[in-house]
């Protein structure tokens, strides 16, 4: 039904690397990608991050391509609009529709390409984080921030219950499907409502039960977990610094670049 990327992160060999280093790499890629004025640095970042995810993170390449196409519909629709409505310059091609003239010019095409490349680089950075770092590891990072305790507690408990409810939802959905619960539009709406209601009631009852069981175990508003220390290795640091330097150099060289 859906791909929970966390499952892949749990078996990734990069899971055992330092979390802060991975977050630094991802934030660097996202920020440079978004602030780049040319489409070259974002594409370079996308290429490097994809390589790191597939080669070092041992993600299947086919699966990686499949999840990369997830934002495709949104991005393509928006990019086409930008290409038609944005920018100035010589017109490349155009047509008339209902007495409106629609045309793509060089400025618009360049902008569309830039936005497309930025999204691609941003998504590949996110995938790197998602496919190599399980949420359990990110909680220690979240705890280091100064966010209120109740917010972090809710996020951690929520994370655990997502999987419980997903399993319930899959089970019910399967049972409904084999009983032709999704045979047409009307039936599927009804089935989906029944499924969601069962989930809601289950979660309500579960919420009451956890409170009782946690209070019985002296819960005072703070869950504490064991955190492993993972020092950054020298070769990782060298590789990361080289990557940062290369991308920054590329970013500097292409800052006033234009393809037309």
């Amino acid at each position: 039904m859906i791909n929970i990327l966390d499952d892949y992160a749990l078996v990734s060999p990069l899971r055992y690397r330092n979390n802060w280093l991975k977050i630094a790499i991802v934030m660097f890629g996202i920020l440079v990608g978004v602030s780049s004025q040319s489409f070259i640095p974002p594409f370079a970042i996308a290429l490097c991050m994809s390589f790191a995810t597939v080669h070092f993170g041992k993600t299947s390449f086919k699966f990686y391509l499949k999840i990369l196409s997830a934002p495709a519909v949104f991005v393509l629709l928006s990019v086409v609009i930008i290409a038609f409505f944005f920018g100035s310059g010589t017109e490349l091609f155009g047509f008339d529709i209902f007495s409106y003239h629609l045309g793509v010019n060089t400025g618009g095409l360049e902008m569309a390409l830039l936005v497309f490349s930025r999204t691609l680089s941003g998504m590949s950075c996110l995938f790197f984080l998602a496919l190599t770092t399980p949420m359990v590891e990110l909680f220690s990072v979240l705890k280091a921030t100064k966010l209120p305790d109740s917010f972090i507690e809710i996020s951690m408990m929520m994370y655990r219950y997502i999987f419980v409810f997903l399993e319930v939802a899959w089970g019910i959905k399967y049972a409904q499907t084999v009983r032709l619960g999704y045979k047409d539009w009307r039936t599927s709406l009804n089935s989906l409502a029944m499924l969601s209601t069962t989930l809601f009631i289950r979660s309500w009852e579960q919420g009451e039960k956890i409170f009782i069981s946690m209070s019985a175990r002296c819960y005072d508003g703070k869950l504490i977990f064991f955190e492993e220390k993972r020092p950054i290795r020298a070769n990782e640091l060298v590789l990361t610094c080289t990557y940062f330097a290369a991308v920054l150099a590329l970013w500097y060289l292409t800052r006033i670049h234009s393809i037309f």
Partner: protein
Amino acid sequence: MHIFEGFLPSPWWQLWFVFSIPVLFFGMHRLNKLVSEKRELLPLLAVAGAFIFVLSSLKMPSVTGSSSHPTGTGMAAILFGPAIAAVLSTIVLLYQSIFLAHGGLTTLGANVASMGIIGPVFAYVIYKAGMKANINFYVVVFLATAFADWATYVVTATQLALAFPAEVGGVAASLKAFLLVFATTQVPLAIMEGALTALIFKYVIQVKSDALVELNVITESVLNKIKGASQ
């Protein structure tokens, strides 16, 4: 409707964070107060958040053929009020961007603004106004959720239009374009989600209506009226 990572250029994604973060802090403040008064609410809110996440990952039957997912934030606003709905949706959006690759980190501010703040506020205001005007409970739920989705969609289109104004006609022209193109998926989606949420509330009232009374979603007298009408 999620804006994906890297889509919003530089001044805009920061600006949407500036808009979202104060609201979020207000929400967290409310949450802290509520939780310190009633400790049993914390696990309940956590499972409610997990429920919203799972709900938003279910595929809805769609008219246009594109896959569409309910947002669930309208329902959260009706159940818990907009301030807490904002906090819950922020966590859900963060998880969606990391687990499902929907949305992103730099665009989180913009997504929280549209889906976690403005949508739920619309849902809540319409719900409260409708209940005061004594309109049928299910109709009110339908309207509140549908309008929450439409508000979200208009805000997202505005965010995109502001970031990418058209050369001819400026923001207004590109807003029109974004609204038109995304209308094909968003208009039916909102109607579907409204119908779905109304149906969910129908079943919840049949099976576990005391939960809704406890959350102050409906009063005892309204509940009796609905139950009387359905028997």
